[in-house]
């Protein structure tokens, strides 16, 4: 029997009290750990955004976004000049086009639906397929198939639909490929019974399916992705680029490179950096981070107060015992150490409970924080599958329909899948992953609080003269 074994045994002296303390303190530790993990997850996301998303510049032909507006495409020559600018790491180039029934034997996976009919009625047939006579009947209309030519086919973030590229089967063609091959979205593949190795016709050419991908949304799952050079050749748009994403070596150089690109391309291009967009994500995340910090502080303070008051209560309850201990030769250090061991035992038990709770609760709590933040913010956005996905006239190709039919002005859709959708993705795609170093830090902090709390409480009693304690009882 020594100080440690006595301290540990004392922790179980009153089972009901031990259980109560462990549960209450465990909840406090669980909240603190969850907030710590949420804070870490948000921090990681912010760093990720800063390193990967705040450092891009989007270059579009002046007056054009996706299939909206009008103007001339950018050329490979122009973008070669951009790639030679200082601090430019890479340029992701793409060309968008649409395939109607006269261009391909594929059928779009997008359903016309109520919205499609409305758009078709308002803006005419356009590039979709109209059966029968020349007068437009929405019921006869079939949306076109959107095709993307890209030198980075696995990055869908800058396409109209956005999403995360996941290869379901097959392989991805190389960035410099000029073969007649394509990656097909799962919805489009399903609609046309395509699998890896299948062929289809586009631009009067037989195209081989080399891979099937999923993007996480209906719009992008209806995409056809081909090598940039192939699409440029087949669609008779040699060297044309409808969108480019310039990656800069550091966020701090984005503004200067943006100016240089604007200067290089002049009025031929609209140049926008992702700094503001990244900042929007970061601002939202910072508010979540602040909530997690305040909650963390609150939980830690609550835990410290709980352990201090519990130990104060226990120490006061055992004043007489402390007096007896001193009378039979115990030093203050021994007495204080014994109470510290007792407090640490209770804290470790509570920490185990807290860790178990936080293992289960950290991720849901983080998601709740994120959801509350996004619900109260202005960045939340829900798209109707297939139509109006942030590429504007994407699904049904109605902006192009309008342009081709010359039927006047249509609605202005929110442009670019890389905008609001990405901000939303940044904010909502956060998961608190339990890292053991954080758990150990939390445990260490809890034990430190227990040591200080019990030390102060027991020292206040241990320093009094034993006769004083024995007399007052």
């Amino acid at each position, binding site marked *: 029997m020594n100080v440690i074994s*006595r301290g540990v045994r*004392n922790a179980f002296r009153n089972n009901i009290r031990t259980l109560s303390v462990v549960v209450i303190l465990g909840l406090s530790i669980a909240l603190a750990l969850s907030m710590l993990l949420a804070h870490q997850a948000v921090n990681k996301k912010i760093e990720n955004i800063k390193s990967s998303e705040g450092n891009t510049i989007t270059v579009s032909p002046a007056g054009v976004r996706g299939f909206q507006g009008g103007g001339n495409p950018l050329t490979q020559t122009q973008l070669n000049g951009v790639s030679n600018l200082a601090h430019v790491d890479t340029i992701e180039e793409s060309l968008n086009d649409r395939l109607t029934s006269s261009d391909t034997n594929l059928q779009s996976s997008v359903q016309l639906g109520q919205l499609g009919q409305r758009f078709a009625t308002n803006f005419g047939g356009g590039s979709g397929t109209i059966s029968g006579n020349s007068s437009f009947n929405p019921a006869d209309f079939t949306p076109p198939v959107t095709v993307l030519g890209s030198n980075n086919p696995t990055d869908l973030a800058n396409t109209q639909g956005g999403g995360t590229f996941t290869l379901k089967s097959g392989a991805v063609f190389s960035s410099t490929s000029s073969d007649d091959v394509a990656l097909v979205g799962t919805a489009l593949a399903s609609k046309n019974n395509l699998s890896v190795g299948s062929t289809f016709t586009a631009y009067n050419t037989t195209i081989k399916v080399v891979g099937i991908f999923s993007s996480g949304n209906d719009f992008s799952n209806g995409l056809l992705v081909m090598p940039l050079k192939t699409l440029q050749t087949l669609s008779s748009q040699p060297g044309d680029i409808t969108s480019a994403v310039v990656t800069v070596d550091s966020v701090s150089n984005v503004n200067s490179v943006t100016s240089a690109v604007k200067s290089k391309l002049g009025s031929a291009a609209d140049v926008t950096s992702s700094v503001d967009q990244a900042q929007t994500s970061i601002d939202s995340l910072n508010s979540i981070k602040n909530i997690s910090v305040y909650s963390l502080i609150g939980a830690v303070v609550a835990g410290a107060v709980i352990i201090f008051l519990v130990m104060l209560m226990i120490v006061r309850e055992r004043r007489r*015992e402390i007096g007896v*201990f001193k*009378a*039979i*030769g115990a*030093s203050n250090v021994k007495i204080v150490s014994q109470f510290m061991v007792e407090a640490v035992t209770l804290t470790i038990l509570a920490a185990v409970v807290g860790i178990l709770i936080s293992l289960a609760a950290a991720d849901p709590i983080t998601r709740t924080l994120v959801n509350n933040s996004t619900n109260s913010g202005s960045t939340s956005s829900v798209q109707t599958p297939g139509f109006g996905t942030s590429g504007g006239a994407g699904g049904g190709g109605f902006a192009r329909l309008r342009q081709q039919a010359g039927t006047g002005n249509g609605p202005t859709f929110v442009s670019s899948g890389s905008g609001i959708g990405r901000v939303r993705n940044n904010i909502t795609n956060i998961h608190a992953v339990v890292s053991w170093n954080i758990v150990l830090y939390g445990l260490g902090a809890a034990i430190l609080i227990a040591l200080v709390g019990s030390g102060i409480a027991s020292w206040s009693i241990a320093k009094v003269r034993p006769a004083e304690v024995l007399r007052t009882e």
Partner: protein
Amino acid sequence: MLKVDKLSKSFNGAAGKVIAVDGVSMQVLDGQFVSVVGRSGSGKTTLLSLLGALEKPTSGSIKVGNQDITVLGDRALIKYRAKQIGFIFQSYNLVPNLTALENVMLPMEFAKIPKDQRQPRAEELLNQVGITDDKQLRKPTRLSGGEQQRVAIARALANKPQLILADEPTGNLDSQNGKIIFGLLHQLAKKENTTIIVVTHDLSIAGKTDKTFRIQDGKLASSK
């Protein structure tokens, strides 16, 4: 030898200054069994606390052997209490979640007696006071009052102290158990050659000690 010289202790109470012990001088020889009697509030327990270094006197000296314990620092006092003093309280004051055996071993731990010597010594003492077999492994709540006081006596003897201070050791016991405990103390004092000072208001017990001091209003009224 215990030599107390002009020992005083005063407190600041609600009604002003209270002199609990007022210029007490006394001498107790080694191995003597001494009683201190007096009415409630006369200062007996305070005198015992001063002798046990549980509190510091306002003035005067207490010499145990050649050492004046009133001038000792805190660390030396802890050592003094651990090695040279044994306490027996009226309400036993055993640690409730320790067994009888562990209670007796406790002061040995504080006196830094080697681990392997603690248990045999504790068992021997408990056997001497009549706590045997499974009772040694019982917690105080599962022992009678008389048995608890026996454990307290064994605990007081654990470190072979020079001086045992007992504050009303039979106060919570019936007369029969009181006599048994008193006899036990007497017997052990002789066997271990330990000085025992018992505070009591039971004059029948006081009459059987080697020496009796009567305290009245904090002063030593008589000794015989």
